[in-house]
């Protein structure tokens, strides 16, 4: 999306038509840019290996982004479960959410359902995603996960974002005298809008890294997860622990030189135990995702003597 060339005026008579054309081009280019200011991304919610013996909280995820966001599409993948499962449904507290259902198809090993709708959540407002399994008796899911496609408005940093519209472009009638003041006002208004648009360049992404059934004897690095280096800016994160009292979960974000960027311990207890909105204003120094030496590491370690059924970190970028 490359802005059009400006109207040439050199060696020509300055006419209302010329100026109108020049400003219209500017405003159309501005609108083309601002209308595409949204950041699109996706995250996954893993429900694999859940069984009827699991606690209610193990079927839930809690997401609390620092920015307003919208879900625009959902994919729900369900491999053939064990037991008489008749339906698996994914619901959410997001405004406008429509329940996504997956019905096992007998001999078919996997069913995929998807839906496109818009569901909204405000900044710093916790939203819950819940998987509900309907079954005739005991059951066990094989693999089951949801891919949540989202978008966030980069221009949401202020309610004055881009107040200009195409109709706001200055115009001169045929034969009208072209006064410098009006031209200046047109450029000044346009500059204000471009400045706001320039500020709307953040990567408003959410990523969920989850681990189920975290073993008691968990060696360091055994559950290391990788974030490739893309020059990303971290904003904050949430850590959730579904473990029992004493089964503490430690999350550590490690940078490319093996230094700790941030670490948070979430004690076990009545699940879920949540530590949310942990500030982590770090920017990846490198933007070379091909080099593993630039990777950031998400590390989980734990304490206690009982398997933690679910632990996860939700990472927010800006």
């Amino acid at each position, binding site marked *: *999306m*490359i*802005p059009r060339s*400006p*109207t*040439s*005026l*050199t060696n020509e008579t*300055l006419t209302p038509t010329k100026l109108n054309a*020049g400003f219209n081009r*500017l405003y159309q*280019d*501005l609108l083309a840019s601002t209308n*595409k200011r*949204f*950041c*699109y*991304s996706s995250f996954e919610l*893993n429900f694999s*290996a859940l069984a009827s013996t699991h606690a209610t909280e193990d079927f839930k995820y809690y997401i609390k982004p620092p920015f307003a966001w919208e879900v*625009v*599409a959902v*994919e729900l993948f369900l491999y053939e479960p064990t037991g008489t499962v008749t339906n698996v449904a994914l619901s959410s507290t997001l405004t406008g959410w429509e329940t996504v259902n997956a019905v096992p198809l007998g001999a078919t090993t*996997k*069913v*995929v359902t998807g839906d496109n709708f818009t569901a909204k959540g405000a900044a710093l407002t916790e939203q819950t995603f819940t998987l509900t399994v309907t079954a005739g008796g005991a059951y066990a899911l094989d*693999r089951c*996960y949801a*891919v949540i496609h989202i978008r966030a408005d980069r221009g949401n940093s202020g309610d004055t974002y881009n107040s200009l519209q195409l109709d706001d472009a200055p115009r001169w009638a045929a034969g009208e005298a072209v006064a*410098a003041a009006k*031209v*200046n006002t047109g*450029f000044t208004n346009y*500059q204000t809008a*471009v400045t706001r*648009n320039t500020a709307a*360049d953040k*990567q408003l992404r959410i*990523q969920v*890294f989850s*681990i189920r*059934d975290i073993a008691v004897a968990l*060696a360091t*690095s*055994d*559950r*290391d*997860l*990788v*974030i*490739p280096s*893309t*020059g*990303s800016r971290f904003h904050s994160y949430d850590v959730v622990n579904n473990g029992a009292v004493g089964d503490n979960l430690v999350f550590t974000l490690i940078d490319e030189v093996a230094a700790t960027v941030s670490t948070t311990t979430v004690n076990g207890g009545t699940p879920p135990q949540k530590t949310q909105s942990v500030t982590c204003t770090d920017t990846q120094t490198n*933007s070379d*995702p*091909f*080099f*593993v030496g630039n*990777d950031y590491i998400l590390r989980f370690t734990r304490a206690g003597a009982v398997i933690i059924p679910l632990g996860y970190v939700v990472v927010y970028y800006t």
Partner: protein
Amino acid sequence: MSLITLSGTMSASDIEANFEDKRAALNTVNAINGKPFQYDHRVNDLTNNAAMVPLATKDFTVPDDMLFVTMGMAMYNPDATSRTITLTLSAITNASTAVAVPSYLMNQSIFVTATGGSASTFNATRYVPATTIYLIKGITYRMLFTSSSATAVDSAFGFVLARQFKRYR
């Protein structure tokens, strides 16, 4: 950004300069010369499949045309037993039938292999594309772990990284 304030008899070159200045500013916003991309990042975690039966697949459908950047994998080896697993990316007609369509990946064979043979080691590896590869809107892609070792994998993690222009839509 700087504006030339016009007055009296306006100079054509001053007006042109103002137009061009703003056009250049938009170029920067649209990141023609800056960091032009937003990233999407898919993960596949083999943790729950430590017994390797079945090996994990992870499917996802791409909502927009996106530029494939790289695919990576990391594996943890708990002991000195050698383990080798491979993560492969393929394009499939849909997630239910899983018929591969190599042309949707420019007929490239995209895979990374991690081998571990030392106790308590973390092995990471990366695929570097030899050509430009796009993930195509509406097409379902599959990440698949396979093993060439008899010993169960303790844990492994794979990801696909793709990107699109910041001002794509």
